[in-house]
């Protein structure tokens, strides 16, 4: 039974990891070799494909755009999301119940329903096409993160807050020096989760940015895929090189912090 379990797990892991391995290998081969032996090349690896994709897509510029887009969302989520999560968990104020119902509702409303009106408002109404603000706005405060923050602030003992308030600390001070240090692991989990969203997001920045020099890497790589794959004879090396560049930051961060992607953190976020 035990052996079966590990066979299933490792076989699954192999299937899950193989495309990533193949992505890396493909990005290093000068000509695509799709035979089975080609998956295990022994020589002839080169970085030419990276130079090639860089000449067609401004990799550094796109990475910077992705970084600003993601950074803006993270900043909004960490600052305003933490404030909202704290207020929802620890403060009694008028409208709290309504706001919490909204937090739950928002998670059910699919983004595609908002797509057309958001496009009309942000691009046509506010003239925010090809701007960082236009990209960031719909994702500015991640509601799932607000929810996770609330759950974690809720779990802190009441006495802690009573004591701090008794000492005459204001709410911001309680939040900053008492509550925040205690929820640092949750903060990291929420930041990592929030990071994945905008870094990998394609549809919205694709709609908002038409100028190549404003596009995040996911968009410029997708445009490269959809424009050349029909014409070029052999575009895969360059596509895979771009894919590696796009995947590396998220995968790297995930591996470095993988123990923070634990089921209990997320579970409390999902189960409510």
């Amino acid at each position: 039974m035990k052996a079966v379990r590990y066979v299933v797990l490792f076989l699954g892991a192999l299937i899950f990891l193989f495309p990533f391995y193949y992505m890396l290998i493909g990005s290093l081969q000068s000509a695509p070799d799709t035979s089975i032996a080609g998956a295990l090349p022994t020589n002839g690896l080169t970085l030419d494909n990276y130079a090639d994709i860089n000449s067609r897509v401004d990799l550094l510029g796109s990475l910077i755009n992705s970084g600003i887009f993601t950074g803006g969302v993270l900043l909004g989520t960490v600052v305003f999301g933490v404030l909202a999560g704290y207020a929802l968990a620890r403060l009694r104020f008028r409208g709290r119940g309504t706001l919490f119902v909204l937090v739950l509702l928002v998670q059910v409303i699919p983004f595609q329903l908002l797509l057309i009106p958001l496009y009309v408002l942000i691009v046509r109404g506010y003239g925010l096409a090809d701007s960082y603000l236009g990209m960031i706005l719909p994702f500015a405060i991640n509601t799932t993160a607000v929810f996770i923050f609330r759950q974690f602030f809720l779990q802190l003992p009441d006495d802690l807050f009573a004591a701090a308030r008794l000492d005459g600390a204001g709410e911001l001070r309680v939040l900053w020096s008492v509550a925040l240090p205690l929820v640092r692991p949750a903060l990291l989990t929420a930041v990592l989760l929030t990071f994945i969203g905008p870094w990998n997001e394609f549809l919205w920045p694709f709609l908002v940015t038409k100028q190549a020099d404003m596009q995040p890497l996911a968009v410029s790589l997708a445009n490269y895929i959809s424009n050349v794959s029909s014409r070029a004879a052999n575009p895969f090396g360059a596509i895979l090189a771009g894919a590696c560049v796009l995947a590396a930051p998220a995968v790297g961060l995930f591996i470095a912090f993988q123990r923070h992607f634990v089921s209990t953190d997320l579970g409390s976020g999902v189960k409510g």
Partner: protein
Amino acid sequence: MRFLGRHPVGMILSAPYAVYLAVIFAYPLGFAVWMSFHDYFFAAPGAIVDHPFVGLDNYRAVLGDPGVHQAFRNILIFLVINVPLTTGLALVLAVALNRAVHARAFLRVAFYVPYVTASVAVVGVWLFLFNTNGLVNSALGPLAPDPSWLINESLAMPTIAVFVTWKQLGFFILLYLAALQNVPKELYESAAVDGASAWNRFWSVTVPAVRPATALVVILALITGANLFTEPYLLTGGGGPSGASASPVLVMYQRGLQQGEPDFAAALGVLLVIGVLIVAYINRRLIERD
């Protein structure tokens, strides 16, 4: 106690988020519904134009559109393949992972990595794997389908369904792992005392115990399916071959923004969400029946 509550400062702290919800969710939501009942089109900037009320015209146009019919049929194919595959594989792998002692970190990374990677990046490698001369076909040799996977009318949508299963499975394994932590150990012990086989324990203890998680997994997989855009846009070059892998959101993009009929797209969006809500409700009733 007081009109503003015991801690009025909470209103100030949560105000930015409340404003954000109003501007980014509530208002566009109302706007979408409004747009779907009016003749809305893109006018030149600054031009003042009328958007007359047209009743259910947009809905009639959507419901009578063959492209929309096909997109919904495609999503049905997608769900029939994706949902059972996702729930089954995620539960089996979560159970195995839950009991595993060795190499847990490695296995977790392996299963979650597709989930944290951008669709655009992994679409690149799937295009490479599944194209006519790709590795999958050279491994299959004479068994390779003709035309190849992504340009074959009957295989394009199933290939997308398998791709999305692979991409999202890590997240669902995570949900099941969380649910498994709450299954009382005594249930397994008494089942073992009764001499139940491992297979029986899985069917009669684990599966019923994680039922709420299954309901959530099914609903989230459904929402993912309804949101499908990047995969048909890139993997099959815009819903090809001849619309066989078009999704409703892809049609929304094509009709609403490319062809300038946002009112049509808004009505399609409203119908899509109503569809998701109905299926989610039926799913809940079925899973929570007993």
